[in-house]
């Protein structure tokens, strides 16, 4: 359980460049949740998630993760950081080791595990992101962009975090690499039912496909917090702050506006396929 209460954060307090980035943020994310944080560029998403594993300390407010207050001075930060894995934007730029294996092993090694345990975790993490074993001996700099990103994500997964946070995990990937990463994340969440996943995204389609729960940020404030259906039902408010609903939802709204009798809560293409087929073909939908 992650519980954030009245969090405020100010950059460079007391300096000419002083700027408050987060205002009175409060939310809760239960164990095993799949939450999405969405917001405009500069809305404070990245700053907020860096608070969740104590990389950034709030100016005021509290953050409690599984019963531990991580803002407190004597909090065990190494433990917090191994429990809350954070995958940064473009994580492939942090790869540095000679081989993929050693790079993935960096986290577990810092945790002081035995070689046998490290090996087990590296193989497990590599498997989770779909890296074949023959890649483990290669230099990370020889891999393709999508592969590099998966190595970087494996480098965080190898610490076996209870909470996995991903900052725009699909940014800059081609559609194929994007589907692969999203598929793996979603499979991971299904297989490890107790792992909480939080991801930051600009793509409403990805959010609709994966998330159970959405937190909407605007100018450093939480403006909406709720179930996916609840949030996407407020399309007008979303577009006012520069966000949007998934394209398929927009299409559905257009149809409703033109008098088609159809349910409005359609957020994913897969679901739309079924509903539209029923509506227009008058029968149970089938793949075409």
């Amino acid at each position, binding site marked *: 359980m992650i519980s954030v209460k009245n969090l405020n954060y100010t950059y460079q307090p007391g300096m000419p460049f002083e700027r408050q980035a987060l205002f009175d943020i409060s939310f809760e994310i239960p164990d095993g949740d799949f939450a999405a944080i969405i917001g405009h560029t500069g809305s404070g998403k990245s700053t907020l998630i860096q608070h969740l594993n104590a990389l950034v300390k709030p100016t005021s407010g509290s953050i409690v993760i599984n019963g531990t207050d991580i803002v407190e001075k004597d909090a065990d930060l190494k433990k917090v950081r*191994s429990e809350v894995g*954070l995958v*940064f934007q473009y994580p492939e730029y942090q790869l540095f080791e000679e081989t993929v294996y050693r790079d993935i092993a960096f986290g577990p090694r810092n945790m002081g595990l035995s070689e046998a345990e490290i090996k087990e975790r590296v193989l497990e993490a590599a498997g989770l992101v779909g890296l074949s074993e023959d890649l483990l001996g290669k230099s990370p700099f020889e891999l393709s962009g999508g592969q590099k990103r998966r190595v970087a994500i494996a480098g965080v997964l190898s*610490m076996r975090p209870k909470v996995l946070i991903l900052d725009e995990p699909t940014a800059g990937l081609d559609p194929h690499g994007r589907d692969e990463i999203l598929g793996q994340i979603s499979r991971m969440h299904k297989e490890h039912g107790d792992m909480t996943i939080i991801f930051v995204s600009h793509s409403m389609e990805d959010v609709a496909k994966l998330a159970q729960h959405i937190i909407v940020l605007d100018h450093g404030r939480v403006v909406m917090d709720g179930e996916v259906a609840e949030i996407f039902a407020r399309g007008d408010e979303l577009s006012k702050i520069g966000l949007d609903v998934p394209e398929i939802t927009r299409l559905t709204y257009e149809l409703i506006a033109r008098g088609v009798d159809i349910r409005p809560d359609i957020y994913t293409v897969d679901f739309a396929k079924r509903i539209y087929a029923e509506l227009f073909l008058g029968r149970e939908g089938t793949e075409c």
Partner: protein
Amino acid sequence: MLKDITIGQYIAGNSPIHKMDARVKILFALLFIVLLFIIKGVAEYAVITLFLALVVKLSGVPLKFIVRGLKPMLFILIFTVLINVLMTTGEVLWSVNLGIFTLRVTREGVTMGIYMLLRLVYLVIGTSVLTLTTSPLMLTDGIEKLLKPFEIIKVPSHEIAMMMTIAIRFIPTIADETDKIMKAQTARGADFESGSIIRRAKAMIPLLVPLFVSSFRRADELAVAMDSRCYRGGASRTRMKEMRLTKYDAYAGAVIFAVIAILIASRIAFF
């Protein structure tokens, strides 16, 4: 730590110091540094202190900001003062015997220490005012113009200025990047802050390798971007903003020459 780097930081403003010509500012900053190393005695230091205070006040740069630029210098400052206080011979004020040698604090040492401290602090403040009130672009343009005459002896003034522009331009970018990679590695359990010197040096590898890789990538991208916009060096390039001397440069010249005149006059009068 990285936030303390004030080099390349520019605070936009509209003060008389901001409005001065970059060339003039650079020349006067150099002159100021020379003065700092010539002056001696309380009276002359007082004149320079007043002058510097006037410049800082006019520039409108918050004092806090200037003080912050001194923070990274703290070690050097303390070291300089200690060396001067302990190593100057003269009238002993206080001494302690440490077996093999005796530590002596002398009157001359203390005076020397204070003067050296002021000298270094003023040096940093003076040059900070220059960089804080002059945009990096103006600064390098100024340097390019000042180096122009040396082209006769084959000094590539434009290339030097361009290299400096790029270097200064990338300080904040690389500082940001360093911060990001540090955070990413910290999130994977890296520890940059504790342990012996050797451990800490080793801990830098996960930071430096990605930093080098991305610096080369950026350099490559920048080269392509410049090439695609037909960059071909300084020959026959014109500027959007031509540098012109204004009344502010005249005022500044008057003030600084007045300061020099006072210093010279006081020396003639007293010796």
